[in-house]
């Protein structure tokens, strides 16, 4: 097993709102290993994005993070602004969902790339330019020198996301956090971006965190998967274990609701009944209980702890019996 790169212990993300504090992430323990691709999946509001924004120190003003996050053994949670500017973009980088809005429309692509090297590496603009051209070529953008003096609106969505990836990797960070990197892109472009991430991971050995609600994306790229629900980790497993032998009813619901081409067209798309709980009025027991087909008395009263099932497989569920048929995923 590869060495641990990022260790998250008891991470909680809290937002103070008009209705009092709301916990977007609760009691999260996990680690990212060097060079792996860790997938984090969950629906909107499950806390998957807020987890990583908290680690990057990018929470909204009313948000605050508690717990401990160590990068290479060094505590990085809630660092002062100055220390953050040395860490972000240098040792860990993050790219975002919508490449259309994630780049500054007022600055050339070159300026938005070179500034990273000028700041973190103290390079001159000229040196940085040469490095940026190479970086654009490594994400398969042709005619890179000319493109540096162009503006983001002159690029397509897929190209912009390539630029974002190239920019993030300029400083060769140990960790690249991708928050829904392909959600805003066409399916064919999605596949190209995923292939690119896989290629870069192999070339640079960068650990990648892939935050998405798309199980297909996870299946293509991730080594391990964490399933989030209502700010909690409900299941964690190697990708093959998860798809083949998931043990949490929510994971089951997620996998069932993936549209399938081999089903008759008249078949209804499976859904999970109900909606995620209001994070401000969290039930005492398991947050998934109201929507769970397997719920029993204890689920209402008591939060299930995250326990190991062996083989690096963890889950948080009281239900001991079998889940529904799994033959299609196996």
């Amino acid at each position, binding site marked *: 097993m590869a060495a641990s790169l990022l260790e998250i212990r008891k991470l909680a993300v809290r937002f103070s709102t008009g209705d009092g504090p709301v916990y977007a992430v609760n009691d999260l323990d996990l680690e990212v290993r060097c060079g792996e691709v860790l997938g984090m999946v969950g629906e909107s509001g499950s806390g998957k994005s807020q987890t990583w924004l908290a680690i990057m120190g990018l929470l909204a003003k009313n948000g605050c993070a508690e717990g401990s996050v160590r990068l290479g053994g060094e505590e990085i949670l809630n660092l002062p*602004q100055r220390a953050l500017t040395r860490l972000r*973009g240098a040792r860990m*980088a993050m790219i975002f969902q919508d490449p259309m*809005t994630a780049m500054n*429309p*007022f*600055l050339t692509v070159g300026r938005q790339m070179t500034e*990273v090297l000028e700041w973190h590496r103290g390079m001159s603009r000229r040196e940085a330019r040469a490095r940026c051209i190479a970086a654009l070529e490594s994400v398969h953008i042709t005619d890179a020198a000319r493109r540096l003096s162009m503006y983001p*609106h002159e690029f397509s969505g897929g190209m912009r996301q390539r630029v974002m990836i190239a920019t993030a990797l300029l400083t060769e960070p140990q960790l690249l956090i991708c928050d829904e990197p392909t959600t805003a892109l066409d399916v064919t472009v999605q596949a190209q971006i995923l292939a690119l991430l896989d290629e870069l991971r192999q070339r640079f050995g960068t650990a990648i965190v892939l935050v998405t609600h798309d199980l297909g994306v996870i299946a293509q790229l991730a080594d391990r998967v964490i399933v989030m629900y209502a700010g909690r980790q409900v299941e964690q497993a190697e990708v093959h274990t998860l798809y083949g032998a998931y043990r949490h009813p929510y994971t089951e619901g997620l996998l069932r609701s993936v549209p399938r081409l081999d089903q008759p067209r008249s078949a209804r798309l499976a859904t999970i009944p109900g909606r995620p709980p209001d994070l401000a009025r969290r039930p005492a027991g398991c947050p998934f209980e109201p929507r769970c087909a397997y719920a029993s008395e204890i689920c209402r009263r008591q939060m299930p702890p995250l326990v190991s099932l062996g083989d690096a497989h963890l889950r948080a569920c009281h239900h001991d019996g079998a889940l529904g048929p799994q033959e299609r995923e196996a």
Partner: protein
Amino acid sequence: MIRLVLRRVLAAIPTLLVIITLSFFMLRAAPGGPFTEARRLPPQVLANLERMYHLNEPVWEQYGRYLTHILRGDFGPSYVYRSTTVNALIEQGLPVDLTIGGLALALALLIGMPLGILAALRQNTAWDYVSMAGAMAGISVPTFVVAPLLILLLAVKAHWLPAGSWSNGAPDHLVLPVLALALPLIAYVARMMRGSMIEVLNSPYIRTARAKGLPERTVILRHALKPALMPLISFLGPAVVNTLTGSIVVEEIFGLPGIGRFFVDGALNRDYTLVMGVTILYAMLIIAFNLIADLLYGVLDPRARQQ
């Protein structure tokens, strides 16, 4: 760029023509005339006056005559300020308005922009609340209250500054009118700047800039400032003209020989040529400053430059 300017100047011609035509006929349609006075003139005198100013001709002929004069840049004689021309009146009054208006705008940008930016950066702090409450007051309290207050406090009580008059634009005579004109503008600019800065700071590309580890100073100066200025630019075009026209109250209170009073006097006295001249002047100013705002837009925003 040059093609844009040319196109806009050409497009301004029909606009101006419509404005001239409408105001020409609306003025003629208003009851009374330039020589209708409380004490009626003898019919012979009136007839002579009307013949002298061609007011006895059919209205279409007058309109044609007016247009040909305008093409030569001649706004005609004033009917009320006898023995002067409208051109002379404008040449006399416009520099006054340009001076106090320009200074007030410069002051508004110089004070309002940093005030708004600081308020945005310290959102929901005491600084933010105090400056925005001040701005709200600056917007809501009308000039005809602010100007006398300034005179009362700084001129009458403290004797620091003269209470009024132009004195050929002596600096100490400028301070109070410029302040009175600038206060609401400062407030507007500060509020706009705060709003747009907050909006920009919440945009995804600012999050990207921070995620890249850039220091906050670079994030604000390089990434946030330019986009935050955009709403201000579209506001400034009309604001320049509003400041020039809106100075009527300030001119009146401080006794300044600006153009504003010609607007009022001219309209009340049916001084056709004077009202027309001032109207056309403002129309041209509005067109010109909107064009300048659009050009600035292009300079700042690469997306606008392409179109």
